[in-house]
């Protein structure tokens, strides 16, 4: 679908662009330079196995750059405690499927400490985790678990869809006084996630809780999450050739959600499709759909349609995996379904 519109970027174009891993490196380096309370912790960090810690150890030293043992629960609790005692830890949890081993620490400590202690605690912690699906990683490395955390009050959640947003959101997250979970769609590590680099010398910040509208349109609102934004834009391009005008909204932050932008868009278009790589039941798409139905019912001209991963675990075989995820074709079909109602 639409691959003819994409081509290899030239050297000059690439220099003007920012990639996902570059964005993380720049955000971390800038914020660690700006504030000595920021510390970086993660598995395989010093060896830079995942490529998101270029030269960090050399630049900031071993006190502020720590390799963590394979102790996810201990690590998240460690970050919570360190933040309550004056540091601003950034934890690289690497693969998002590894959150499950630390669930109690996320929920019982990180999310609840401030509330349960009557506002005495501040927990400025950022936890980064890659959504490592669609690449033969199978059931234990391919989860997209952010909706589970949307169900836990007290956490903020960002899912950037391009490198420039990632850099700006991550920098804002590090400066935020609350725990922020940053889920990075690994399908955007390459070409799909590249974006125009912010101007030189600009402290590029994207505020949490502010959506963007990467494409304006009048017939249908497509809300995309992570790679869902890319799929939505591809679908919109294709549908434009048929005369269908799609508006693409990227919430960027799932908690707090920028409901105003979504409501305004749907109120204008009267149609809504939500593209979410998470598993369907109780997905972010489910929450967005419910909210749109509750708040924009009078404007809706068609059912809200979710395009999500099917309610199944991720199978290993290349013959099995791809079909379960949202795709451009599935987004196009969903838009057509909303257009069936005049």
């Amino acid at each position, binding site marked *: 679908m639409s691959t003819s519109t994409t081509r290899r970027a030239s050297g000059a174009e690439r220099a003007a662009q920012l990639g996902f891993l570059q964005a993380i490196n720049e955000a971390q380096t800038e914020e660690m330079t700006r504030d000595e309370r920021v*510390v970086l912790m993660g598995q395989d960090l010093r060896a830079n196995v995942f490529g998101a810690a270029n030269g960090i150890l050399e630049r900031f030293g071993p*006190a*502020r750059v*720590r390799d*963590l*043992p394979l*102790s996810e*629960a*201990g*690590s*998240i*609790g*460690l*970050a*919570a*405690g*360190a*933040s*309550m*005692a*004056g*540091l601003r*830890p950034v934890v690289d949890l690497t693969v998002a499927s590894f959150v499950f081993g630390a669930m*109690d*620490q996320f929920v*019982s*400590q990180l999310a609840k*400490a*401030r*509330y*349960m*202690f*009557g*506002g*005495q*605690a*501040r*927990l400025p912690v950022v936890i980064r985790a890659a959504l490592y699906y669609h690449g033969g990683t199978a059931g234990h490395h391919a989860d997209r678990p952010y909706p589970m955390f949307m169900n836990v*009050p*007290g956490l*903020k959640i960002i899912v950037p869809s391009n490198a420039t947003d990632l850099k700006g959101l991550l920098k*804002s997250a590090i*400066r*935020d*006084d*609350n725990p922020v979970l940053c889920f990075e769609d690994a399908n955007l590590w390459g070409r799909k996630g590249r974006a125009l680099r912010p101007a030189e010398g600009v402290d590029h*910040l994207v*505020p949490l809780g502010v959506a963007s509208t990467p494409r304006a349109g009048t017939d249908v609102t497509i809300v995309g999450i992570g790679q869902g934004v890319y799929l939505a834009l591809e679908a919109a391009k294709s549908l434009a050739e048929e005369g269908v005008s799609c508006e693409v909204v990227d919430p960027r932050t799932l908690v707090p959600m920028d409901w105003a932008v979504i409501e305004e868009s749907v109120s204008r278009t009267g149609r809504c499709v939500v593209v979410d790589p998470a598993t369907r039941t109780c997905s972010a798409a489910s929450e967005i759909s419910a909210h749109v139905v509750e708040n924009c019912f009078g404007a809706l001209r068609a059912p809200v349609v979710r395009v999500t991963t099917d309610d199944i675990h991720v199978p290993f075989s290349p013959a099995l995996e791809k079909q379960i995820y949202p795709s451009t074709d599935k987004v196009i079909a969903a838009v057509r379904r909303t257009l069936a109602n005049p």
Partner: protein
Amino acid sequence: MTGTSTSTGQHAAPPTGGDDPFPAEFSHPAGRDLALEMLRRMYAVRLFEEATIALFHSGDLPAMVHLSIGQEAAIVGACMATTTDDYMTGNHRSHGHPIAKGARLDRLMAEILGKATGVCGGKGGSMHLADFSVGSLGESGIVGSAIPVATGAAFAAQVRRSGQVALCFFGDGAANEGVFHESANIAGTWRLPVIYFCENNGLAVSAKMADTTAVPDIAIRAAGYAMPGVVVDGQDVLASYRATSEAVARARGDGGPSLIEAKTYRFHEHAYGLAVPVPYRDQAVVDAWFDTVDPIKLFVERLLRWGLAELAVIDEVRGAVERDVEHAVTFAKESPYPPPEAAYTDLYAETPEGSA
């Protein structure tokens, strides 16, 4: 059955008798004040909790309480080896820790009654006391869950080179939680200034330690994480104070973490008023503890023997605590409940302007 447990799931009585020489800790000019402060804080825990029992029976208590009665010496000895600048975390058996760390009794009692003036504004309750003003970063109702939090506070102290330590209270039950081992390994590897203090009362609710735990002493586990591990008599406030003082000095001197195991006794049920259908310990034995291993009684006897205080002075200390507790109960009862809208505050911190 191991050597340190009995059929009641409790430890054998600590060895007593023999020489009990006048302790060096109390020999200097301020020694008497130190001894009386230990006594005062143990009374504070005891009388505060006895007041919660009365509130339970009068119907004023909105939830169950997990009492530290019997464990006062372990808690007070440990806390007195730290200052209010040092960090501390604890568990569901929570009242003793902040009291011993120096928190105000009135705001703790108000919290237990769910009042607006409570130290957590009524959002935490008995199991989740926290008073950041004295270094208490919170008690955790999830067993073991605050162990990594204390470890993280110690990490922050190390990075900031502040000289602070973190005191981490947990029980023998929590020593079987994964986060204990994960945290101890991180602390041992990074040489963090943390003191893991196990109040081993021999019981995880009803489960006897020997039935759930592979080793007779939690302190043995220190060897796996490159830190010293010691067992102390948890009924002896001075023993707890001594061991913790050594650990604190080591931590402040970049000597890394320590594990202290205080063998102690839970005099009351897991939660006060909890009805356990099948008897799991001999009540006659438990009743006898109030005479044989009451840490306050044992310390009073020694103070008298050492000539550090006469009965009148001890009564004076107790009387002052009684008045503090009475005030705390009155303050808590007379304080208003939080308004309904308070349920929706304190979830997120406002990030200061200009920082983002």
